[in-house]
């Protein structure tokens, strides 16, 4: 017993200061890309040649990256001779609409996720329970959702909790490209979640199929099963990216963050 108490003292207080304080992200984290279409050597097309998922939508003045498909591998940045693509370590990426995941150059704003509509927000603002369903997820998105429950992130301090039963849930967080083999189970889990409910697509697989997009064995994401209310891109998204999206969804993000 004494040893347990001593270890409690040694382990210290570890919950991060964010979102009230600053977030600590790795300097090499590949987050939201910054694009400079004006210097893109239109026609070189190397970025599109190396992209595993066809996420680079256009070149030259139309240079754009679809973060829904992007795996954040950074290969396009490496091959770009002009330096028109640079992944920054901006981790705030979650959006409410699929089309908002398309990053363009210049001063085009990136519209981060908005809270759920007013009557639902009243219900979810102080307590939102999440049922996670892995449908072909590779266990990376799952791990970075799980880590939110640890004392480092302490999901519970925001009224958020991952629950076992869909009957107890307000939100269904889907990971993976939704293989045909998992489609029925996912449909049943969503249907078992009482309304009003939200569906969250975590990771590029759940948004657009990820590296499995177009495989005949998968459905290319959660959107084929249910309308998605929150898109959290990444392969996998950094836990802060996921938490940022969840806090925006339930209107708990401090002003200015």
């Amino acid at each position, binding site marked *: 017993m004494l040893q347990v108490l001593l270890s409690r003292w040694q382990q210290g207080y570890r919950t991060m200061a964010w979102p009230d304080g600053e977030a600590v992200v790795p300097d090499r984290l590949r987050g939201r890309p910054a694009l400079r279409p004006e210097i893109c050597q239109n026609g070189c097309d190397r970025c599109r040649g190396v992209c595993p998922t066809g996420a680079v939508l256009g070149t030259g003045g139309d240079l754009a990256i679809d973060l829904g498909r992007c795996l954040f591998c*950074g290969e396009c940045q490496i091959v770009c001779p002009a330096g028109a693509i640079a992944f920054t370590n901006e981790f705030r990426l979650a959006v409410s609409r699929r089309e908002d995941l398309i990053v363009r150059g210049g001063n085009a704003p990136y519209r981060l996720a908005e809270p759920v509509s007013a009557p639902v927000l009243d219900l979810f603002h102080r307590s939102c329970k999440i049922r996670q369903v892995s449908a072909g997820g590779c266990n990376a998105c799952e791990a970075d959702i799980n880590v939110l429950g640890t004392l480092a992130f302490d999901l519970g301090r925001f009224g958020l909790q991952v629950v076992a039963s869909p009957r107890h849930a307000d939100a269904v967080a889907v990971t993976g490209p939704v293989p045909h*083999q998992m489609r029925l189970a996912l449909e049943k889990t969503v249907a078992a979640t009482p309304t009003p409910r939200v569906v969250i697509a975590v990771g590029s697989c759940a948004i657009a199929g990820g590296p499995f997009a177009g*495989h005949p064995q998968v459905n290319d994401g959660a959107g084929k099963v249910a309308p998605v209310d929150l898109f959290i891109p990444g392969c996998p998204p950094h836990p802060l990216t996921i938490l940022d999206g969840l806090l925006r969804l339930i209107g708990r993000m401090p002003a200015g963050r």
Partner: protein
Amino acid sequence: MIGAHLINGGTLAVNEIPVLGIDGFRGWVCEAVSAGATLAALFGHPLPAGAGDGAGAGAGAGKVRLVAVLTWPLDGCLEVLAADAGDTYRALTPDCPSAHWFEREIAEQWGIRPEGHPWLKPIRYHPSWRPGRDAWGRPAGGEILPCVTDFYRVEGEEVHEVAVGPVHAGVIEPGHFRFQCHGETVFHLEIALGYQHRGVEPALAGGPGPRTMALMETLAGDTTVGHGLAYAQLVEGLAGCRVPARAMAIRAVGLELERLANHVGDLGALANDVGFLPTASYCGRLRGDFLNLSALLCGSRFGRGLVRPGGVAFDLEPARVDSLKARLVPIVADVGNAVNLLWTASSVMARFEETGTVDRATAVQLGLVGPAARASGFERDVRMEFPTGFYRFQQVPVASLPGGDVFARAYVRWLEVQRSEAFIAQALAGLPPGPVRAELPGPLAPDRFAVSLTEGWRGEICHVAQTDAAGKFAWYKVVDPSFHNWMGLAMSLRDQPISDFPLCNKSFNLSYCGHDL
């Protein structure tokens, strides 16, 4: 040995592989495994039209060749042999139980029936890859529902069945478990998988291409470096690429960080499953700290983007090496502090000891790999037996315990945690100078066969591939460690209370997607 020899990461010309008659093939694989070899892979691949016996144009069309990859730990070499199968052959499994899951896969993928297989059911529930040939005579084009099969049933008074999944209570991948119980006691557990089938192997044929590395890094997302490294080694062998020493060292650091994160996470999860919250809580945080060290290397907590054919995509400048070393010290201290609470807590030890025992004979027969094998006294570790890259210069002692119970699987992880920490500290102290990546000298050599093994945190990862005349993958075979180990979990539940299932399951912590591919 009858088959062709090669070393880990080596290649052979396709025509160097002896193609035996199916009886000779069967006989030698069974004999070799009983003589101490292990079965790293046993699978079928389609023969191109014109190949195979008969040699006339079109003779090979629709035919399947069986390939066995055997590992000989004492010789440090691999042996490859092949045979052309008809639509049926005499199953190896009755004489070589470690072939059991491989033969079910062969039956499902190619519609070939291993006659006499004691447990011939699908493993992933997808249609045959050879249209019109189905091992169970199911109609072509008919719907195949996942995990709808003839489950093993125990009949009798007060015997009852518990079915769990595919959607489980936690944040975990899907699978289906059927328990045959008498009261609390589990007579038998049958595990049915396939929900995670994403079609990775068929998609790899025709590569390498822009998507290949991404598919490798997501085969099993918690084993990104393990699978990425197995693929990189294989491609480097086929391209004749020499990897710089500094890249080898950084790869090994990445692989050991992956092991540390997962082992520490597992120790925390085991503590959680017996309600011992201090260690559960601390290890959850510490696991993340190791993931953050991987992110320090390459920006991704799972090591994505680190390993690339020819080396690694990120160098470690001196300040980053210092930062890595400095951050490792307090994490190592905190891990020791958190984990050592387990071994002195009688409430933990009472649950860990003599729970879910898999004896050595069973582990050897099933061909278990990784910590699960080593915890049953079956000492096998690719890093020691078939070392590649940096492991040829710096060894990791193999951690092993004889008990085979949950305690042994936990304690082997703890031993491995300490050895990986020491390994990383030593590697960082003597990081070789020079470049971190070499360009592949050219396209892959045509018509060659390659095998690559790595020791992922769950155990032996085996990638096998063959190039066609154009130097593209004719086919690509992946064997995740979980493929060998799921039956080990089923065996650990025999005569256990069903309430110990979560604990036994966590002590194996196997991959669903790595199995389902």
